[in-house]
């Protein structure tokens, strides 16, 4: 049982916790990259980006389950890809706004210093502003990534074999006395994954502050 929960059913590997972590990682990384682009555009051209900002605000109002359902039903993407894309869009809606807010608070004094040192605007953005923004936003991003890892459970609506789906399948097949044990094990695995992520985030924060 534990192997199935960790890496998925024999015919659907990778699955289980491995797939949950993988999908959160892919969606989170994609959303972070797009979020940085979005934040840069929004801060650089606030009026031009109003439409995109509005679209992202609407996106934040849509439940992840519905977003997954829409992408799976209205696009020709394979189910797993639709699920990953929905997770990525959902993450972008939150990460993009967080990064935009932090990028906008970049101190004017630091910008002036860069200008005095004749650092080009592109170099300033890539080497100073974006790293500063990421450092400042780490706590907020960390909270979102923890939430994202747990939200991978929404992929169960498509039957993609991540941890919640596997736990659900195994518990539905199991005898009445065993289903609680399966669900508790899955809950424990999620908890361990979240605690591990918190440790990683603490380590990253410590490295960034030194």
């Amino acid at each position: 049982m534990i192997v199935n929960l960790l890496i998925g059913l024999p015919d659907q590997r990778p699955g289980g916790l491995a797939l949950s972590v993988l999908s959160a990682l892919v969606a989170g990384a994609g959303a972070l990259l797009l979020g940085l682009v979005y934040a840069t555009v929004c801060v650089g051209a606030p009026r031009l980006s109003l439409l995109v900002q509005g679209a992202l605000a609407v996106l934040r109002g849509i439940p992840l389950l519905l977003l997954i359902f829409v992408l799976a039903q209205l696009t020709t993407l394979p189910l797993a890809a639709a699920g990953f894309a929905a997770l990525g869009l959902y993450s972008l809606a939150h990460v993009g706004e967080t990064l935009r807010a932090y990028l906008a608070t970049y101190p004017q004094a630091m910008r002036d210093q860069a200008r005095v040192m004749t650092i080009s605007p592109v170099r300033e953005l890539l080497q100073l502003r974006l790293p500063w923004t990421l450092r400042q936003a780490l706590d907020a991003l960390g909270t979102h990534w923890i939430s994202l890892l747990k939200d991978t459970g929404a992929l169960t609506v498509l039957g993609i074999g991540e941890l919640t789906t596997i736990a659900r399948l195994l518990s539905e097949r199991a005898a009445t006395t065993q289903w609680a044990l399966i669900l508790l094990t899955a809950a424990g695995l999620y908890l361990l994954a979240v605690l591990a992520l918190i440790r990683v985030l603490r380590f990253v924060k410590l490295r960034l502050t030194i």
Partner: protein
Amino acid sequence: MLLGATGLLHQALATVTIWALSAVLALSLAVALAVGSSGTRTALRLLAHGAITVTRGVPTSLLVVGAGILALGRPSPAWLPDPFPGTPPELALVAWAVTAALALGSTGHLAVIFRTGYQSLGPARLEQATVLGLGPLRRLGLLAREAAAATLAPTGTRLVHHLHNTAFAALFPVAELFGWVQEGANTTFDIGRYTTAGIGAYVLLSLLIWALCRGVEHLLGAPARRQPAVVPA
């Protein structure tokens, strides 16, 4: 299940019911956990911390699956009220179990928001409240009002997330909006229409929750702003 505009209204009402009941439960539990985890009794504090960690670390989807499976095979007791529109009365127990699971899914997050808001008042302010000699409940009310400025915005965001989590109820035969979208799209193949209606309804409900929280924020902030400015003698 009704599939037209009437169906949409019915399911939106069902979603609002599940959201309201689970939100009240989550807010009450969160206040209890926030108070417990900020208290002086070690055992109570550890217990509250443990509960917060577990409810924050376990996905709501899994909590709903567990609660649903637990309740599905059992008959609904006759004394159990059935406030869930659209859900058959014999499945009221499942609806209540899902509601409780949804509440637990948000409890830890809300407790951390409340605790952070309480701590943000600072030790001097907290001591002032103690010196006033108020009873525990009145003191809690006063501090909650003081901390509202820091807690209402994240509470609003969490309550919107909580609304979105109600969609997990569709994993079981409990009437709500996402289940209606799924069934309507699968029955009529008019996917665009049902998903657009669902998205519209969720966005509108999210907006209403956000506006409600901003309204409360404004109400609580208003008296402070109305205070006359201190004029030096």
